[in-house]
């Protein structure tokens, strides 16, 4: 008991200290949460969320803020609300995150953590009803985190059966952000949702939550150097084809040529024999050639 009080006092002091040091634009926000263990992406009841895919150099910015001694971060909290089918939205959990202000004025969320409220008995009943009717479980988030709820809430729905595919309920949030604006939230089962969906109420009424923050990427253009370079390349490529072997290129001419040569050779070998046999030289070879060689010769005329 005493230790917790001390810890609490310490933490309050710590917080105060930080707040004083920061001299940031203040947020009317109170948190009852410890900041000391804030270095890691902690998440209750779930695995660690993937770090937000950012193109900005996170480490260097952190170092810079450490060096200057003033951290431009502040904490931010927003509520998740849910609805069963057509019912009204009611609070379902709280997201906590740190708002990082970059030197260029941009703001991003980091260290998102989520704690879900326990489901009440009526909620459980409602949820069972959704599973039976294969109806939608809906959630919503504010569309602007600094000025909650912003213009409107962002809504997402999923068939309740998709969440309850195992013993407990599995959920996965992908929050698409643009600065402090929530563009949309993709909500659903972490993996696949088998089809046809089966009606299976959960045995354990707790949520395994996974969260992921997503910022947009920039389009990177593959730099192409001047056309001249390309033109040279093009020429170079045109010169390459002769690398194919001589045989590969001219086989269709070589084979008939070889046949002709062979034919001619046999003929040449036959000729002396026949001449030696004392036949009149003018007739014999012609008779032979009339069968074997003449078509080839004719073709070549």
């Amino acid at each position: 008991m005493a230790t917790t009080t001390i810890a609490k006092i310490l933490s309050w002091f710590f917080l105060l200290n930080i707040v004083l040091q920061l001299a940031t634009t203040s947020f009317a926000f109170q948190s009852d949460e410890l900041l000391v263990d804030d270095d890691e992406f902690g998440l209750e009841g779930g695995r660690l969320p993937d770090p937000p895919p950012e193109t900005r150099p996170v480490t260097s910015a952190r170092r810079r803020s450490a060096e200057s001694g003033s951290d431009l971060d502040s904490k931010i909290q927003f509520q998740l609300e849910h609805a069963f089918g057509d019912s009204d939205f009611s609070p379902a959990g709280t997201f906590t995150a740190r708002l990082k202000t970059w030197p260029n004025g941009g703001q991003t969320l980091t260290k998102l953590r989520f704690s879900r409220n326990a489901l009440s008995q009526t909620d459980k009943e409602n949820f069972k009803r959704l599973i039976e009717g294969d109806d939608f479980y809906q959630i919503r988030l504010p569309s602007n985190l600094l000025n909650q709820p912003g213009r409107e809430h962002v809504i997402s729905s999923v068939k309740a059966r998709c969440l309850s595919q195992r013993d407990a309920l599995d959920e996965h949030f992908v929050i698409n952000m643009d600065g402090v604006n929530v563009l949309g939230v993709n909500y659903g089962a972490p993996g696949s949702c088998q089809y046809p969906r089966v009606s299976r109420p959960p045995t354990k009424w707790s949520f395994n939550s996974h969260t992921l923050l997503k910022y947009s990427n920039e389009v990177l253009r593959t730099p192409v150097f001047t056309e001249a370079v390309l033109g040279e390349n093009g020429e170079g490529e045109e010169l390459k084809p002769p690398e194919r072997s001589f045989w590969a290129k001219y086989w269709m001419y070589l084979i008939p040529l070889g046949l002709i040569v062979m034919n001619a050779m046999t003929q040449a070998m036959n000729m002396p024999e026949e001449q030696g046999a004392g036949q009149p030289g003018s007739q014999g070879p012609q008779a032979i050639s009339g069968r074997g060689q003449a078509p080839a010769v004719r073709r070549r005329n």
Partner: protein
Amino acid sequence: MNMAIRVYLLLFLALSYSYTAFSLYEDQVGLMDWHQQYIGKVKHAVFHTQKAARKRVVVSTEENVVSSLDLRHGEIFWRHVLAPSDVIDQIDIALGKYVITLSSGGSILRAWNLPDGQMVWESTLPGPKASKPLLLVPTNLKIGRENVMFVYGNGFIHAISSIDGEVIWKKELASEGINIQQLIYTDGSDTISAVGFVGTHRFGTYILHAKSGELLKYKSMEFASGFSGDLSLVTDDTAVAIDSVGTSLVTIQFHDGLISFHQTRLSHLIQNFRRAAVISPSNIPGVFILGTDNSVTLIKVLSRGELKVVEELGHATAVSDALFLPGGQQAFALVQHRDGKILLTVKLDSDDGTSNLLEETIHLDNQRGKVQKVFVNTYVRVDRSNGFRVLIVMEDDSLFLLQQGEIVWSREDGLASIVDVKPAELPVEKDGVSVAKVENNLFELLKGHLLKLKGTLMIATPDDVTAIQKMRLQSSGKSKMTRDRNGFRKLLIVLTRAGKLFALHTGDGRIVWSRLLKTLRKSETCQSPRGISLHQWQDPHHHALDQNPSVLIVGRCGDSLDSAGVLSIVDAYTGEERNHMEHVHSIAHIIPLSFTDSMEQRLHLLLDANRRAHLYPRTAEALDIFQRELGNIYWYSAETDEGILRGHSVQKNCVLEEADNFCFDSRDLWSIVFPSESEKIAATAIRSLNEVVHTQAKVTADQEVMYKYVSKNLLFLATVAPKAVGPIGSVTPDESSLIVYLIDTVTGRILLRVTHHGSVGPVHAVFSENWVVYHYFNLRAHRYEMSVIEIYDQARAENKDVLKLVLGTHNLTSPITAYSRPEVSTKSQSYFFAHSLKTMAVTLTAKGITSKQVLLGTIGDQVLALDKRFLDPRRTVNPTQAEKEEGIIPLTDSLPIIPQSYVTHALKVEGLRGIVTVPAKLESTTLVFAYGTDLFFTRLAPSRTYDSLTEDFSYALLLITIGALVVAIFVTWIWSEKKELQEKWR
């Protein structure tokens, strides 16, 4: 022998040459394409018939065309299409040789040379505030040596030289807050007056010196009852207007700056007068036209400002402007409808009443609607009397020239304003028909082939060449009214802005039938009807084959989304209206569902402004099918102004006062809220619903398989910074960015979000298979760019193993549900592109095997076909040998524009607004229809016609070759036999 071989070789070469045609040859133009030129609904017409050898009429139209038409045949001599923002206000002819157009609200004045349409000069007349544009061209007023004309626009009156468009003087008339309505110049005087209203209760008149612009007099006078509507000029010093309550007519006389009013109650003039009378704009000295909701009345203004009814005419009457006859008399034309015919009357107007000069009845087909406008012109007959010719504009925007009680020519200019296009199949050919035809033409056929052979062997005389050309144009029965094996012959059902439906034959572009839709005509209940879209209602393919296909036409009464909708269903073969529904719920969006009933009628879901969904057709069967699929129907709506994208699904029947089984409530499933300060929706694109994808896998050069992410539910959406919505150049690159999204429309999942910094719209995008191509402007590079995104499915990427496929451990056959988290990867690449675009489309083929081409409607009103291969994200600077074999082109900075790849070759589709592609039955071929003010149709084969011989393939040559070969075989065989025998005998 030697000779024979040479002949073979020659033949062979000739044959192989005929295959390698890639783009069009000059003599192939018009073989499979057609081009039609239109001008649109005529607003103003000026005849030019004096002394000129070629009689012509100059018109300006609502499509912003200024054109000169041949009065004998209705052909276009010349034509200019102005930009959509540059609306033509007035036209006239100056000096007898220049056509003067005033456009852009009186800001731009142009002169065009009358014979050839060359622009002679152009003047811009800027001013501080918008006002009614007026153009006055006096016939012979000279300042110094120059003929002048007067233009009032943007608060200034300008005197402008007719010769070169120089401003001689200008004077601001808007200073008193006067709203100038008319400019008056009396021939021979040296003053010009401008009259108008100051506020609503005061009439004012300026008198200026015509030669110097000096203000001589300004008088104004208060009228207690006030004015409403426009001022109509009756004579040079008399005008009429309606008072503010709309119950009496005010005659205003302002001779020499002395203003007097004279009020006449409308109920005294017209019996059973109800409310809402309007003075129709007309230009007949001494007479004006008063239109009420059930009649048109001609009223004469007498000397003291008293009014006298000349004639009361039926509701649908059009009256022309006055025409001055040589004898100093004036005449005007009236066109009335009388039992299905139109009655043309030319009246002579004199001080003691009117008399009929001419009365003719002309029969027009009943699909033309009411007469909208009449323009009259006179000519001298053989017997030296006055003859009249009349140009009339009908409700369906068509144009007719009438003379001597006959239609001299007509133009279907409604086709210049196409709203939507849908293809329809032609009827199947009956047995026996084709055979008989071939037998009859056997001799012709042989003769034709002989001619073609001559052409191929280049021994044809010029006469033969023309004969071949003519034969080609007529041949192949391309304009037959039956289906062909290749699916080239189709009907294009076209809806025009006037509410008329046309069926065009794809063979030659002729109109097969046309129908002016009753539901889209102005009526008591529907004041300004407007056609929205066309949908395939019934397209029998498998059963119900005795039924003709039909199309659904959706329209609404009025411009706002919540105005009542109208629906009609029209038979695609005959053009008959099968069914129509007027005054139904409002129509915000139409979703054709993928289900058809037993009659093959497609189910449609019509969403109203209150987000209710209405099911059509309203039959129990359709309802039954729909109820079964209720849980699988999702749609999205993009609220562009709000910057919110929402997903919806059907919930249950509506709760209405009267039960309606076909009405369903919708519920919001998801929403995406775009930050209003940094993003504004600029463009969206989805895949064509009837697109066929042949293969899901793509095998790359290194024997890897990539699975395409093919989903019908993907939406491409682009947003730009709100500041950058204006024209290019209004923002700096740092302020603007273009953000591109790929969104699953069932779950609202954002699959991709990428930013193009320093880029602005306008964004044009096209989505096909697993790729998107979009076009935008890059401010940093000062160039247009085109980007491509290809989406691949990673979840299936492991299915490469043949063993896996054999053992069945792959997941290729497992059902796909949108609720599973997709694992997709994207590849993208950007290229510079030289053109700015008006529209974009992609080729569609029957089976999706043929490679794709992106069709770009360029700013020059041409259609450019760009191979998708150029827009491949896998292009690298130095592709490997394997990649090159696969067909990957080395990466270049910009996309090439190959002149031969212009689909429209030398033609222009003026005012291009849309491109529609329709797959033919032949896989290699796609039909392309581009529309705007002009129409253009052609066939495209993106990978060449690999599955058929070209039309000009010479079968005779092939037969002769085979014959010659057979003969040669016999000859050589006999020859060798003989020789052998001889040798054996030796």
